[in-house]
């Protein structure tokens, strides 16, 4: 399955990953329930404040899921940055991936490839990683 994502959302995620460097940044993109449509960017605080780990704050996590329930939304994308390694899910990412319906997006800002960046998307289901194409769309 292809992840279709607006160019302005991609730009904001890359901007966030640079702003929070050297820590990993993280967040979600929400959409209407059942739509698989990534429309609402929601940057989250990395409670771990770490260059090698990210974790949503526990209170923020509850607030996020309450919002999903109340407004009939779903998490379409879970994203985070890798600052020194490639944009591929690590063992930790795979172990903790808990949204089988979400696209897991990784961006990398590692300096070997600067000023280029990587923006890649995966499905992570029962420990199986499948990369999927990303289609970046420009809005009318």
């Amino acid at each position, binding site marked *: 399955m292809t992840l279709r994502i607006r160019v302005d959302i991609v730009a904001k995620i890359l901007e966030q990953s640079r702003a929070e460097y050297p820590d990993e940044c993280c967040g979600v993109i929400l959409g209407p329930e059942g739509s698989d449509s990534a429309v609402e960017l929601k940057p989250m605080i990395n409670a771990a404040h770490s260059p090698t*780990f990210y974790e949503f704050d*526990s209170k923020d*996590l*509850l607030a996020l899921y309450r919002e999903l329930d109340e407004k009939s939304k779903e998490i379409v994308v879970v994203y985070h940055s890798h600052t020194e*390694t490639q944009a591929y899910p690590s063992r930790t990412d795979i172990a*903790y991936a*808990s949204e089988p319906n979400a696209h897991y997006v990784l961006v990398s800002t590692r300096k070997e490839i600067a000023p280029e960046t990587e923006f890649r998307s995966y499905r992570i289901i029962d420990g199986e990683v499948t990369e999927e194409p990303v289609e970046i769309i420009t809005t009318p």
Partner: protein
Amino acid sequence: MSSSTTSAEIEVRIPTILRPYTKGEKLVTAEASDLKGLITALDAKYAGLGERLLENNELRRFINIYINDEDVRFMGSLAATLKAGDSVTILPAVAGGCK
């Protein structure tokens, strides 16, 4: 018997990833007076669920459980007491990293 040990029926929200254990149900109920008892009661109804929540009799590091709006880690974890009308939410942490 003190009122604190009286079991109450508790509503529990189950996250997507654990719904295979509850036959797809998002909202289930179980009777308990504290969180440890609730997990035991849930596991009796939905075999295997307990193991996804506990490791060596402790709450798993990357599972968050809330009683109403409060993370149970700030309420005594497994010893957190439950009373009628409480609502419990289980959420796996959203976490990862480059290692």
